[in-house]
Structure formats: C-alpha cells, structure tokens
C-alpha cells in the first residue's frame, strides 16, 4: 500500500479532463496557483473526484535528470518516473503521490499517463492528433510531429472550436466515440476548449500539392491509429485493451487520409 501523506494542511485543485477529475493537493500555494493558471478552463469544483494525488515538491532524486519516462507495475501499484518526477499510484484506491521539481511539465506528464491508462480500461485513448468541433461534430487530425497537426489547428476557421493541437482525448460511449478538449498543448501553446462532441471522422495527415480525402482500409487505419496512440505501460492487459480499442474505433469511425496544402482552403473539406 502506498503511504500517503494526509491531505489536511494542504490545499488542492481539481483538474477535470474528459469528465475525469483528479484532485492535486500540495502544501505550496504558489504551486497550486501555477496549476490553476496552467489548467484554466479545466479547473473543477467537483468533490467526487476520480483520483487523488499528493504532490511533494523537491528534487525527485533521479540519477539522470534527462531520463525518458518509464512505467512499471508492481503488485498493482503503478510507478512512473522521469528525470523531473517520480510518481506512484494505486488504481484500487485511486490515490497516488508525486515527487517532483516545481515545474508544470512534470504533473502534465503524470496527467497524460494517468488519463491514457484510465481511458484504456474504458475503450478510449489519447491520440497524437489535433481535434476540433465544427457543426456539432468532432474531427481528428492525426500524425507524427511535422505531419501538420498544429498547422491544421492554426488554420481552423472561426466557426470551429479547437479541442487541442497536440493530444486528442477519445472516449467511448455506448453508441460511438466523442472527443473532448484537453489542456495538453503543442506548438500553438493554446489550451483546448473544455467541450466535447461525437467524433465524425479521423483524418491521417499528409502534406501535398492538392487538397484531397482518400478512404483508408480498416487494417491500415488500425495500424496508423495504433502508431499515434499515446501508450506507456508494457502490460499485457493494457496491450490487449489497446488493440481491441483501435480495432473497434476503425470499425465505427471513418478513417481517411487528408492530403492538404497548408492554407485555409483545406477546411472547406471538413465538416
């Protein structure tokens, strides 16, 4: 069992993304204020939270401050480490603690990993994709760095609501999927709007000399989707859930390749 410091004498903020609320408690008011500023629009007043974190500020004591993230599961407790933080949480009790330096990037990484795991159990996922709502429907634009996610987000017309330019939040429902806004930003450094809508299409981005949309066969779509899903845990149950989710998604949501010239005319094909 994790030994968690009592939450008394600590203030907290609740960060709610995609309907999942995580309460973050810390003794340093300046740190909490920083979180409130960074996650503005995603701060919630919910008291029935899905997860509780206690943050201890200080150097995490990692040997390599530039180390990549590593995720491990020991006796049901998840342990996540990077150069600037060390986090542990128990899914069973929905509680965890983070030891981190007082920077905003550490807790941002913890939240991304936490949400990716929670979504995996619910048939959803985080996707390397920009996303926006237009005419009541959500559209996702997936691709690796440089594929055009930020470009598509930056070119979005006034009648489109940007959910993210970097990490799309996909939730599964009984009759389909919805995309939710996230505070996980890319090069635009602009928080998404905290709204959601049913997903109408996923586009795989490719820059070209003309704007066109071509359907993508299911197997190819699943491969592309899997290559863009954020996934951290080398865990068989998670792997099985991830593969299942990707195949289910491409069976329900049209997946196409969007070849585009990087100017605003491409949005004439969307929505």
């Amino acid at each position, binding site marked *: 069992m994790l030994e968690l410091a009592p939450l008394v004498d600590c203030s907290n903020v609740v960060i709610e993304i995609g309907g999942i609320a995580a309460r973050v408690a810390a003794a340093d008011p300046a740190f909490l204020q920083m979180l409130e500023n960074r996650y503005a629009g995603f701060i919630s007043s919910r008291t029935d939270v899905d997860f509780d974190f206690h943050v201890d500020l200080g150097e995490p004591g990692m040997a390599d401050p530039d180390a990549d993230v590593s995720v491990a599961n020991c006796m049901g407790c998840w342990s996540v480490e990077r150069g600037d933080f060390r986090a542990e949480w128990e899914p069973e009790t929905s509680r965890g603690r983070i030891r981190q330096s007082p920077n905003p990037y550490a807790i941002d990484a913890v939240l991304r990993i936490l949400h990716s795991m929670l979504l995996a159990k619910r048939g959803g996922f985080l996707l390397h994709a920009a996303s926006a709502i237009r005419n009541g429907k959500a559209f996702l634009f997936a691709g690796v760095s440089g594929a055009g996610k930020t470009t598509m987000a930056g070119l979005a017309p006034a009648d489109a609501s940007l959910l993210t330019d970097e990490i799309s939040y996909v939730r599964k429902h009984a009759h389909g999927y919805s995309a939710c806004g996230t505070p996980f930003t890319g090069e635009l450094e602009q928080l998404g709007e905290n709204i959601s809508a049913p997903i109408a299409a996923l586009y795989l981005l490719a820059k070209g000399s003309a704007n066109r949309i071509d359907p993508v*066969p*299911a*197997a190819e779509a*699943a*491969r592309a989707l*899997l*290559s863009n899903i954020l*996934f951290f845990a*080398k*865990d*068989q149950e998670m*792997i*099985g859930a*991830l*593969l*299942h989710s990707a*195949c289910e998604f*491409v069976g329900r949501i049209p997946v196409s390749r969007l070849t585009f010239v990087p100017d605003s005319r491409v949005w004439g094909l969307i929505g």
Partner: protein
Amino acid sequence: MGVDRMSDKLYVARSSQIAARRLDDEMMIMSAVDSTLFTLNETATFIWEAADGSTSLEDIVTHKICSRFEVVESEALQDAEEMVRQLAGHGILLLSDEPLAAANPSRQVTP
C-alpha cells in the same frame, strides 16, 4: 532451443506475451514486451492460427497452406520456417523441436 536444422520437425506456439486480433484478412499482433505491432498477411495468419504447439510446422503447411494455395510444398515449408523464425526472434512465437504441449494460449481478442 535445438531447432536450427531445417530438416527437423518444428513445433510452433503463440507466445502468451502478446495480444492479437484479426482485421479483414490480416492478423494484427502486439507484443506486450515492447508494444511492437506486427501484421501478418493471409498466409502467415493461417500458420499463426494453427500454431498450437502440438502440430508440426510441416503438418500446418501441408494441411493449411498447400491445401489452399497453389504452392510447391518444399518451398512453402521453407518460407514458413523463415517466417516463424523471424516472429520467434521478436518473441511472439515459441519454437521447439518437440511438441509444446504446455504452451500458453495467447490473448486472442475476438471481434
């Protein structure tokens, strides 16, 4: 593992450290060890699905491949051996020169 000679009978079994799902005519396999994604074509999928640890690769090729496709059996067996050794190298298939009766079933995700 003692399975280097191609003339030996070879038994193949799916690793338990994977998740697999058929989509259209392809089998998609993810390794739980390193999250690598593999896609098998139709022929390889027949071999994968028949890799129960107790049926020799030779029998699989004879009954699952040669009965469906117009191929020379010796060439099909050679191709199959090459394929299963590649997959074994990635840890998603187990090879043995004896039946792998106790091979764990893989996590097959059904549609």
